[in-house]
């Protein structure tokens, strides 16, 4: 069994991004007004995740930083598409929701790749010794 690792800022950022994706995909499975009400909360949650990423970037290695920067871009897109989506109805609303999910998914992907880069770095450094 591997040693239990203390979770750092990037792990917490990843959990927040996963939660955001979960919230949006749950909202998408709802109908009409319920979906819209849930989507209204997304821009705020995305902003919190962006702030959290920006606060954690300084201590990360170059590869992780690159992925985190890309995650910020996708989260900004998530914010925008969610904000635009709540102003629409019908097919346009559905399109905005799908786009918001896709952006959030891409953001989680980038954070998850940052986590993988962070986990690989110590192992690689150890192998060089």
């Amino acid at each position, binding site marked *: *069994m*591997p040693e*239990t*690792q203390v979770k750092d800022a990037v792990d917490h950022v990843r959990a927040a*991004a*996963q939660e955001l*994706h*979960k919230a949006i*995909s*749950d909202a*998408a*499975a709802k109908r009409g007004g319920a979906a819209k009400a849930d989507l209204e909360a997304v821009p705020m949650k995305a902003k919190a995740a962006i702030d959290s990423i920006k606060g954690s970037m300084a201590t990360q290695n170059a590869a992780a930083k690159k992925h985190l920067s890309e995650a910020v871009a996708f989260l900004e897109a998530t914010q925008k598409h969610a904000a635009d989506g709540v102003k629409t109805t019908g097919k346009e609303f*559905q399109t905005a929701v*799908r786009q918001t999910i*896709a952006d959030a*998914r*891409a953001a*989680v*992907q980038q954070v*998850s*790749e940052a*986590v*993988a880069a962070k*986990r*690989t770095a110590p*192992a690689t450094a150890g192998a060089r010794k």
Partner: protein
Amino acid sequence: MRNYIAVVFDDTTKAYEGLHALWQLDDEAAITVHGTTVVHRNDWGEYNVDSKDTHPALATAVGVGVGALLGALAGPAGAAIGAARGAAIGAASGGAVGAVADVARADTRDESRYETAWVLGAGQSAVIADVSEDSTFAVDERMRRLGGSVYRRAYGDVRDDKWFDDYPYDYYLYPYEYVPPYSPWWAY
């Protein structure tokens, strides 16, 4: 190294145990899981993919996408078959994929060229995942203890398939542990 993996189990409950174990390995930092989904094949040979999507067209899209991914795991020839079968069956029933692995396996030349060639039999379920792992030991050992068989294909090889651009596989995998509310897992 980054790999797509398929872990085949003899029943649905075991598959959810396998799904949970994968995310546990991630929590222990033994691997990094980028996304997962669970595919089932019922006793009549029909495939179903766990999906939150309630809209038939979106559920179908998931079926087609995961069908293509199953095919891709069986090699490039399988991707074409997977997409075609997924489209045909998914359009009819929503969230279903075709018998891609069986068909791909019939091509023995391709089977010998790829690390992954597998069959999902009637009544079996498979966990499909995109993972980063420094060694294959952690996943292999944990899944073996649960009775699962692990099949892998390098992420880079799948990306090189010409079908990759048509099917953004990452999109069809949940980036967290998703177990549908109707799953037998909740009975435990």
